[in-house]
């Protein structure tokens, strides 16, 4: 009797190893198929659905297939939008709810580990607005495009700094104090914040320090 049990166990182990091996082979085949015919598959909705089904039954995440990179699918935009929301929410306390479009693009790329164009980020934001006004794309008077979370007290302060920068070229704590009626501490806080997030560049070779909007020179870079 014991012998039968032992033999039975052996057979079932063998069978499961064989199946596991076959699955690995199959997965390889699917990935090969995908890399070879990815584009065609992508263009034909029914084969796309079929491939996705095969993938799911094998435990391959279809979203990770490289065919997603051939062209931008709705799935890509969904992932992009999630990244945009994550980043703009995660950073809103640091950057006072406002960041340049370029920075956002940079961080989205880091998060998704693939190249994303400004245009695609813009599209993601525009599409998100259908769901309600959470993020707003703004072009400041100097042409710098920023993304702003619609709530956020401080972002309006940042906007005022930008406008002052635009008028004078640079600002300082004193300029903000004199023109906007801010306390020196508040001015310093807003400016420090904008420098630490890379919105403004500091020139510390004058006293008090001057803060410049890099938008002026960004076109030359």
């Amino acid at each position, binding site marked *: 009797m014991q012998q039968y049990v032992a033999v039975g166990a052996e057979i079932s182990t063998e069978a499961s190893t064989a199946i596991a091996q076959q699955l690995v082979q199959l997965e390889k085949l699917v990935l090969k198929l995908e890399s070879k015919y990815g584009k065609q598959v992508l263009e034909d909705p029914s084969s796309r659905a079929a491939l996705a089904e095969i993938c799911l039954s094998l435990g391959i995440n279809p979203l990770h297939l490289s065919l997603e990179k051939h062209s931008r699918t709705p799935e890509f935009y969904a992932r992009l939008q999630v990244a945009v929301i994550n980043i703009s929410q995660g950073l809103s306390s640091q950057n006072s709810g406002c960041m340049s479009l370029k920075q956002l693009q940079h961080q989205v790329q880091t998060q998704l580990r693939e190249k994303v164009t400004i245009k695609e980020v813009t599209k993601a934001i525009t599409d998100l607005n259908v769901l309600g006004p959470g993020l707003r794309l703004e072009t400041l008077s100097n042409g710098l495009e920023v993304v702003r979370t619609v709530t956020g007290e401080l972002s309006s302060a940042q906007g005022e700094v930008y406008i002052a920068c635009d008028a004078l070229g640079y600002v300082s704590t004193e300029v903000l104090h004199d023109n906007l009626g801010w306390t020196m501490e508040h001015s310093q806080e807003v400016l420090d914040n904008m*420098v*630490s997030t890379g919105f403004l560049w*500091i*020139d510390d*070779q004058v006293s008090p320090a001057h803060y410049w909007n890099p938008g002026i020179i960004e076109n030359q870079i």
Partner: protein
Amino acid sequence: MYEFPPFFTRQPNEDTWRLQLKLWQDVVYKWCLANNEWRLTPSADVFTNKRIDRTLNIDAATHVLTEMCRKGVAEKLENNETFLVYKHTPADLATELRQWARETGHETSVLTFYELSEGELPSLEKFINADDITLKRVAEVLERRKEGVAMKEEGECVGIKITL
């Protein structure tokens, strides 16, 4: 960029500073090219813009030059604070020399630094006026690639023997 005052202050934001570093390396190379002056210290003229009265401090300037060394486009000279910026990198020159040797049948020739830097060899313009340190580095690159050997005279490197 060079007229933008905060360009001369190291920016606290790391991403911005990395961008700044890259732009400064460009500025340094172009300055060397324009002045035909390839040796400089962290207090060289390039780091000061007199028109706007701004200077990149020694620390930041050292950072720029050190970064250039790390990228293989400059090197720190022994015993002082001077850096040598390569007009053409030793790696590029070595590749150029190999191609030239192949195309002109100099697979086993000996080339002296003098011949190279005086422009005595046709179509090796990039080597004209190259200094001995750069040429020595070219010899070292070729040695590493097993495509050449440094020729020495009284312990000094004076030429390259191509061994293709």
